């Protein structure tokens, strides 16, 4: 039940004792994380808990002040919280550009497969800046999955989506997980983590308070309101 209670067995990504300071403030305090092949790991917690910082450190986009990270040889896919694709390129041009930069072996085949997998085929020739938020986020996620990385880090990928788009996104992600890709997802939505994650890490004020299956989240099973359960849990932990 406590943090780091789960031992890395077949981890494709593993981090130990990750620490990060912003001035005097501890953003992350000796966090241990691992994610296995095909596993969906959700990192949940309130704003300012350190979720985005953790993902950025795991992706290599940000330096840490202590600890170590073992990344897979096949690379780490990263889907930042904000859209990070070129608005003035079409969907297909974005995928092709990032596939080239990722040095994907068969670019045309990978791009075609990603257009189909992400449900973007019909909008392949549209400029990204003219797409709806849901489509843009799908392109954003698709770019992170190019190059077939062993693990993909997604920072609140469903935050700006309506329920139907959210389900489509999760359907897409679960297909990738079923194919063996490890997914580490941060989210505010506890119910979403409950439904889709194999394992959950609860993060608050840079500390990992819980690491285990969603069903083992304290009292979650007793309450219909997952968020209320999380708030109660955090309060019990002094956060």
């Amino acid at each position, binding site marked *: 039940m406590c943090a780091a209670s789960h031992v890395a067995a077949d981890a494709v990504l593993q981090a130990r004792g990750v620490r990060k300071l912003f001035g005097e403030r501890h953003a992350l305090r000796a966090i241990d994380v691992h994610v296995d092949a095909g596993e969906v790991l959700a990192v949940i917690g309130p704003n300012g808990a350190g979720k985005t910082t953790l993902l950025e450190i795991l992706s290599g986009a940000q330096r840490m002040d202590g600890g170590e990270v073992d990344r897979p040889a096949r690379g780490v896919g990263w889907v930042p919280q904000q859209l990070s694709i070129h608005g003035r390129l079409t969907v297909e*041009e974005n995928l092709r550009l990032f596939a080239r930069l990722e040095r994907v072996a068969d670019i045309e085949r990978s791009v075609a497969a990603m257009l189909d997998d992400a449900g973007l085929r019909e909008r392949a020739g549209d400029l990204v800046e003219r797409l709806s938020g849901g489509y843009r986020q799908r392109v954003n996620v698709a770019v992170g999955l190019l190059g077939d990385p062993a693990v993909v880090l997604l920072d609140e990928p469903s935050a700006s989506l309506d329920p139907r788009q959210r389900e489509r996104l999760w359907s897409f992600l679960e297909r990738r997980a079923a194919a063996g890709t490890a997914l580490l997802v941060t989210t505010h939505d506890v119910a979403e983590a409950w439904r889709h994650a194999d394992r959950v890490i609860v993060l608050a004020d840079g500390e990992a308070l819980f690491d285990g299956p969603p069903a083992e989240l304290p009292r979650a099973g007793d309450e219909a309101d997952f968020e209320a359960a999380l708030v109660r849990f955090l309060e019990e932990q002094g956060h």
Partner: protein
Amino acid sequence: MRWLALKDLRILGRSPLLVATLLLYPAIVALLIGLSLSRGPDTPRVAVLNEVPAGERTIAVGPASIDTDRYAKELFSAVDAVPVRDRKQARELVQSGEVLAAIIVPADVTDRLKSAINLSGGPAPQIDVIYNAGDPLKANYVKSLIESKVADANRVLQTRLTEISAGYLGILLRGGSFAVLGNDFEVLGLRHSKEIIDATLGDLPPDSLHRAPLREVSDFAQLAIDNLDLSDQVLAAVAEPVGIRREVLDGRDTPLETFAVGVAAIVSLMLVTLLLASGLLALERQDNTLRRLIRGLVRPGALLAEKALVAGACGTGVALLLLAVVGIFVPLAWERAGLWALAIAAGAAAFGALGVALGVVAREVQAASLLAFVLSLPLAFLAVVPQGAVSAGLFDVISVVSALFPFEPALDALGDALGDGAMGGDLLHLAVLAAVYGLVARVALPRAAA
């Protein structure tokens, strides 16, 4: 890097309005700057030296005289005159830039003027002007100013010489003393000649042999013919009594129109390259792709180099196109086109590096564009402020600021390429600026991406 460059060019291609603006705006600004270059400082500092001894500054011409001090005062009236001891000091002041030019009235000018007026032969009187051609704007202004003032002074002399010429005509009419080539002649004059001829004709018997009076008339006629032969020299002396002998320091003499062409090309290069380099990098920040790219897809240095390269290539293309178009109307040394391209490419590298440094600072494209405009135009104008137009201290400050910005060295390099100067020092200067701005951008990039 190649794919990013192609991506950036594709994005540019999808913004025809932006491309049209990038082509037209620099051309308009360049033309406006070129027009503004037609004026220089109102009272430039000029070293003055009158080598004519104080007691020899008045020329006697028959009964009349010319005071050359009055002539010199006219010459020096429009400048902030800085008296100097000798030619050496004058040359040093010009070389150091403390004065725009030096005007020297040589010791022999009064003798030559006297000879010209008395038709004694010998070289025409001249004053010496020394100026520094390192700054074509300044040099052209000095040339125009001094030539204008010499013309004014010549007009003063013309008035005096006209009076003297009128005296000669009076002698021809009424008779009197006349000096040519150092010999004095007693001139009979047309009136006396007519009286003698009339008297002789009245008394002359048909077979008279009064040869002597007729010989006298004949001699006068011959003298009149000779004087008419010399009249072109008299008129030349009146038209331009004193000429100018120029000495150029700093080894080159770039015409102002070539300088203005260089300014137009470098302004275009600066605006296109700065706007594109800063804008393309800021676009990566605005699209939030910067962090994704430098996380491992592209090396930060390569990303910056790509932006600077794309922007520099576009800027170089626009500047060369402008030179080619202007070259139709202004004579340019096409055989040195390779050197133009080298100078512009070096300038593009420095402007590109500065542009990416600005792009790192700005969070979005609009801010980057505004920053590029706000910074570049005033610094470009500073770089063309002529020496002598402001105080020496302020000019030193301007020089230091201009040296930190690529405009002035790029302009100097292109000026050398368009003229016949050596641009090695300017290219080195641009390379140093490119390296420094590139380093600043590289150091600041991770913070910008965070």
